[in-house]
């Protein structure tokens, strides 16, 4: 029981504290690739600290939904983070919700975020909400199909079980179904976290904004929570990707040494993935909004292919 | 035994008269003049009365005499007279304008007669009713032919009066069947039928008259406002 509580607190701390770092890392690498210096790895922490201490302006048109949204978003994203295995195969709350719960918790947060966008009454908010809901909706089948393909291999939707099953089989990720599912999930990751070519988190250009348009009216602590949640969401999805497909180093027994190795490996894997995302971001231009479905359709086809190759080559063998 | 008491003779006579009736029916089909038509109908009815009498005589069935008398009175005399007076009173054109031209009508009548024979053929071999002289059993095809041709005439005639006439000649076929097959229906039925036919004829006459009044025409093919 105590161990359970400790692991919950530990993972909470990990998700809370580590997630801005990934964002910072991505930004820095991206800046470097663009031959800029970048703001440094601690800039997100400084931003959050500053925002949390600021006052805030609430639009006169907004209702309680507007103010409640950051809290809901924060809580759901964080909770989703507690359901995925990060450094140990056994995620602290994995028994209380599997991958479906993760996806739906994120959806709950998004639901409120979109409502918050609409609540301001400005056309930017509505624009952002509309696009956000659209893109997440069409990303959903690809995400789910890929997740299912993985879950079928493990015979469970519980992420800890999935990770455990993956740990047991070395070189499993080389099977075609796993590769295809990974590729599909990678595209979904880019869409869900709002990266180029789907969305550009650094822009405030009204024609292309998605995420930023929704949160245009937020300021102060609310904005801090939202930014923080965005980082956490990114980390949650990335963790999902790396630990499901490359579960190497996940500690199964919880020994201190194992933990240490797995932390190091976990950080390493995440940073590699972040690097991959940044490379994609840098190598591509932003797509027109109505080209995004095509990208996500590719993701869906990939995950469907993954499923079919599971069917063709068998759940475990392939 | 006198020759007219021989049932064989009666049978011949009946066959002959039935044939004449049929010929008259076809004549009506071929005829173009209304008054001639009415007269042909009168003669046809008269011949039917004669057939009825003959059968009554040979079978000693008194109630057929009544039927014969009624036929003679109403169909051969009264109805033709009424119709003729109606025709002269409402001054309709005398010529019948059939839908199908005369030669074709006659050919169709021929086919209908043939059909009647085909239909009645299996009945020809039947035994006569027990206890009566087997007279005029072969008149059933004639009766059916009368019926069919009468029916055809109803379809082929434009004027209200001619349709009534066709209906009446069609009923003559029934009468022939009734007396030759079954030697008359039970008397009460017979009387009832006559009463009905009489009332029907009167009603039809009234209707004809009112159609003439209302539409200024006897052409019932123009009565087509009620559709769908």
């Amino acid at each position, binding site marked *: 029981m105590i161990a359970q509580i400790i692991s919950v607190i530990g993972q909470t701390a990990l998700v809370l504290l580590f997630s801005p770092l990934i964002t910072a890392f991505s930004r820095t690498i991206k800046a470097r690739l663009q031959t800029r210096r970048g703001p440094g790895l601690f800039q997100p922490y400084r931003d959050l600290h500053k925002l949390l201490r600021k006052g805030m302006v609430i639009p006169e048109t907004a209702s309680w939904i507007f103010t409640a949204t950051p809290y809901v978003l924060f809580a759901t994203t964080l909770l989703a983070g507690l359901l995925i295995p990060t450094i140990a195969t056994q995620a602290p709350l994995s028994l209380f919700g599997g991958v479906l719960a993760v996806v739906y918790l994120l959806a709950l947060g998004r639901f409120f975020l979109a409502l918050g966008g609409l609540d301001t009454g400005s056309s930017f908010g509505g624009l952002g909400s509309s696009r956000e809901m659209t893109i997440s909706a069409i990303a959903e089948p690809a995400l789910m199909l890929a997740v299912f393909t993985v879950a079928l291999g493990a015979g469970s939707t519980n992420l800890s079980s999935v990770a455990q099953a993956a740990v047991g089989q070395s070189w499993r990720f080389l099977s075609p179904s796993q590769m295809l599912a990974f590729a599909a999930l990678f595209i979904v990751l880019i869409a869900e976290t709002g990266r180029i070519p789907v969305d550009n988190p650094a822009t405030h250009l009204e024609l292309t904004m998605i995420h930023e348009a929704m949160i245009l009216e937020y300021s102060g602590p609310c904005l801090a929570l939202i930014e923080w949640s965005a980082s956490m969401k990114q980390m949650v999805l990335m963790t999902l990707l790396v630990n499901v497909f490359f579960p190497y180093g996940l500690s199964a027994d919880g020994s201190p040494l194992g933990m240490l190795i797995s932390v190091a490996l976990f950080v390493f894997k995440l940073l590699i993935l972040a690097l991959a995302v940044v490379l994609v971001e840098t190598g591509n231009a932003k797509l027109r909004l109505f080209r995004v479905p095509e990208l996500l359709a590719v993701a869906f086809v990939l995950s469907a292919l993954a499923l079919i190759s599971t069917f063709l080559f068998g759940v475990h063998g392939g | 035994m006198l020759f007219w008491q021989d049932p064989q003779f009666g049978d011949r006579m009946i066959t002959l008269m039935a044939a004449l009736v049929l010929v008259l029916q076809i004549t009506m089909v071929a005829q173009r003049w209304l008054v001639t038509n009415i007269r042909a109908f009168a003669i046809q009815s008269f011949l039917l009365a004669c057939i009825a009498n003959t059968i009554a005589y040979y079978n000693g069935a008194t109630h057929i005499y009544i039927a014969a008398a009624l036929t003679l009175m109403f169909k051969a005399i009264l109805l033709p007279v009424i119709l003729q007076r109606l025709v002269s009173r409402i001054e309709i054109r005398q010529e019948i304008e059939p839908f199908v031209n005369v030669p074709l009508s006659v050919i169709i009548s021929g086919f209908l007669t043939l059909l009647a024979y085909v239909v009645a053929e299996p009945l020809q071999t039947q035994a006569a009713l*027990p206890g009566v002289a087997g007279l005029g059993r072969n008149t059933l095809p004639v009766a059916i032919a009368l019926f069919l041709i009468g029916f055809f005439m109803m379809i082929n005639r434009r004027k209200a009066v001619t349709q009534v006439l066709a*209906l009446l000649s069609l009923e003559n076929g029934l009468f022939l*069947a*009734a007396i030759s*097959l079954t030697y008359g*229906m039970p008397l*009460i039925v017979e009387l009832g039928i006559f009463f009905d036919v009489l009332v029907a004829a009167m009603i039809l006459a009234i*209707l004809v008259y009112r159609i003439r009044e209302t539409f200024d025409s006897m052409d019932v093919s123009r009565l087509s406002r009620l559709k769908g």
Partner: protein
Amino acid sequence: MTIPLLLLIPLAASGITALARGRRAMELIHLFSALAGFTAAILLAAEVLAQGQASWGNSFLFADHLSALVVLLTAFVYLACSPYSIGYFRTDQINQVFGADEDGSIHLAKVRKYFVLTPLFAFSMFLVALSNNLGVMWVALEGTTLASIFLVTFYGRPTSLEAAWKYAMIGGVGLSMALFGTILTYYAAGQVLGTESLNALNWSVLAGSAAKFDHTVMRLAFILILLGYGTKAGLAPMHTWKPDAYSEAPAPVAALMAAAVLNCSLYGLARFYVLTVRCLGPSFASQLLILFGFLSIAVAVPFILVQRSYRRLLAYSSIDHGGIMVLGLGFGGALGPLGMLLHMTFHSITKPLLFFCAGNAQQHTGNDSLRKTPGGLLHALPVSGPMFLLATLAVTGTPPFSLFQSEFTILRAGFAAEHVGLSILFVMLLVAIFAGFFYHIAQLVLGPPNDSPKGETCRWKTYPVISLSALVLLLGFWLPAPLYFLISGAARILAVQP
């Protein structure tokens, strides 16, 4: 003694009405005769239920369950029509449909015609059901036509004349065929029984020995009877006079024709059906009945779907229901005739309601067009409007209304007789009929109020509608046991084994 009484009542009513002076006296006599007739019919039904059958005058008149049922239904329709007709013609006078009529003499003459002819009409219908002799039955059926022709021309419009002419011509040909069939049956019977006895055409005698009749003659006879009485019942393709006559006759007359004459003609057909099945076995008659029943239902469909007049709509519904009854008889077995007779009973109670509602609507708007009437009848006629819709649901066989039960019984008979494909088609046609019928009537009844004045002025017109609606609704949940015994007894007569 109830049998002659039953026949005497309408005859006497007709005679007295002919001599009566004022309108009120005629109305009173009419009402009284209808009541007395219905009472007598109930007494007859009770007698039949108690003793199995009733007869009078050396079996000249004869009633078994089937006759008693038809008599009861006829008397009922007559009873339902009588108060309604009073209100109907009073409204006619108010509306001045017969033109300027200062002292009311024209109207009185017209109304006298109705009050004299209708009891005669009823008399012939009673006689159809009560006569044992098939020839007399034919005479009586012809009598119904004769009595009703001048009721069809009642309004003296050119169209009513046209309708009457078609009615007379087609009816005349039809009944001639029926007579031919009757003669042939007599012939077939005579071969077996001899012509000596007057009873040779008595059904009760024929039914006993029909098995020995000549097959070819009976075949021919049944074809002619089917076409003949089918014409009178309005089976397709002999149905063509129906829409014309029903739409031109005054509403109570149309109700009598649709609900009562139909039963009488089918009654005649059923009597011959029994003889034919006894003689030839079930398949010949069944096939023909199914063919014509089905054709009737099918023919009604397009005309119900695309229809401009609601009176004609009701006529096509009548054709459809005649077809359903014949189909039930054709399906045979134990359930088919039961379904047919249940259907006959329920139809006789529902149809008048429909005609009354239609009549009220027509008198209110002055036409029976489905196109000219802008809808919203509900506002103008707060009783007849909604009841029209209710009656429409009832007559299209919507549960809980009773016609559903009978249609379902017939459908079960169809499945029992392994006519599965036909039954499926039957259901499809029923759905199509419902669609057309309900669409038209809903368009008529519902909708925003228009500027026409509020109707329902005459209680004589609304009370029959209300009481019949209550009865129709009640029948959906409660069928009196004696009535059911009567119906099932009658069905046993028709469920013959060869």
